[in-house]
């Protein structure tokens, strides 16, 4: 099953020797530009946003990036692209053992075939349940479950959404491929790593037994501004040294709009300021996680003569000694 090779470096517009920091910067810039909430053409924006996210998922992770670089080199050699041996079973793995069917996936799970093949649950890395055929000697055997990743944006976590997912099943006995499209409603409040079970959409059962289920594992899309941890959201706020020392009021973006945050005088670098109830929904009960503003003190890189004079005056006047033994 040849899959189309994805050039993740091109997706992010970075050279192959880009540093981790450059990759992150490129991701943030593009993600801001193409974020479904901001892009003018919502549909195209979403596609592009997912592409960038997928590229970042791989290039932003040193282990995945290394693996990808090795693949890339091999791919360049030959005309076609064949997955390495032992992985030709396709995108979906069955978590409970035997695998009589081959599955390809399509539609908008958010990840490309290529990603699923090499970096998804079944793609070698992580724990893969399956690949072991224990025969069909049992009379009626329930169909296998299939697992796959589903890329969900933070906005979808808040509002929920519906996705079309296509499954291609290849029956190994006949070699006949059949594509089936289903629509799955993603409930609001899903969390990273949670499984969404789609009943009866796994492998077919043997001898009249029930079909297996399809498990979609939620992966939260990286957001250019916010990081999610459980139902809580984190936002890095750049702060001037005097704002941290003297205190300030700053308007920060949240997923639902903007909030005014008061930085108390004497706020330290890395300190977290909590805005209650502005995080992601916790389940479907209407309760929401918190929003944390993480203070990141930035130092001015270029100083005017006047600024330098002021800092010098401060250094002469100040009694503060950060290395004073306590």
């Amino acid at each position, binding site marked *: 099953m040849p899959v189309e090779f994805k050039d993740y470096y091109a997706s992010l517009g970075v050279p192959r020797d880009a540093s981790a920091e450059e990759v992150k910067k490129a991701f943030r810039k593009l993600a801001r530009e193409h974020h479904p909430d901001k892009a003018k053409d919502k549909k195209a924006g979403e596609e592009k946003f997912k592409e960038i996210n997928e590229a970042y998922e791989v290039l932003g992770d040193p282990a995945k990036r290394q693996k990808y670089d090795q693949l890339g080199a091999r791919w360049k050699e030959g005309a076609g692209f064949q997955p390495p041996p032992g992985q030709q079973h396709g995108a979906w793995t069955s978590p409970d053992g035997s695998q009589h069917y081959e599955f390809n996936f399509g539609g908008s799970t958010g990840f490309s075939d290529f990603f699923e093949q090499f970096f998804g649950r079944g793609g070698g890395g992580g724990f893969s349940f399956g690949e072991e055929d224990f025969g069909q000697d049992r009379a009626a055997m329930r169909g296998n479950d299939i697992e796959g990743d589903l890329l969900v944006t933070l906005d979808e976590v808040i509002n929920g959404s519906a996705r079309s997912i296509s499954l291609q099943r290849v029956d190994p006995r006949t070699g006949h491929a059949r594509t089936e499209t*289903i629509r799955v*409603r993603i409930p609001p409040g899903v969390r*990273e790593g949670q499984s969404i*079970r789609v009943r009866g959409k796994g492998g077919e059962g043997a001898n009249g037994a029930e079909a297996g289920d399809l498990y979609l594992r939620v992966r939260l899309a990286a957001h250019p501004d916010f990081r999610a941890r459980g139902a809580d959201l984190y936002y*890095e706020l750049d702060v001037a040294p005097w704002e941290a020392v003297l205190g300030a009021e700053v308007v920060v973006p949240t997923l639902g709009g903007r909030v005014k945050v008061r930085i108390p005088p004497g706020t330290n670098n890395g300190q977290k300021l909590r805005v209650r109830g502005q995080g992601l929904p916790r389940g479907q009960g209407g309760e929401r996680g918190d929003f944390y503003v993480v203070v990141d003190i930035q130092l001015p890189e270029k100083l005017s003569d006047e600024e330098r004079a002021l800092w010098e005056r401060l250094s002469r006047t100040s009694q503060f000694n950060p290395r004073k033994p306590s």
Partner: protein
Amino acid sequence: MNAVQLFETDANAVYTIEEAARLANVPRHQIAVYYKYGLVSPAKDPDDVGWFFNDDAIRALRRIEYLRSTRGLNLAGIKLVLELMREVEVLSQEVRFLRQR
């Protein structure tokens, strides 16, 4: 092309032990054994409302069955594997979170 089927997934769905046994293809008494061993936990307090399992538990049951029947692990081995997997999952989520900074 036929009309596309729409699936309303319910993240909060719970099943009785009979349903769980059928869905996971594990006998009821076996589920009780797994519960006693701390391999699977009902979504609600069994002493309070009886045994109810959610989708995560169904998935866990199937994994346990797979590890037992196909991989030949005993209960202690399964417990260790599940714990390690859970830990790896938590750690990789934390790494992802930290790396996004």
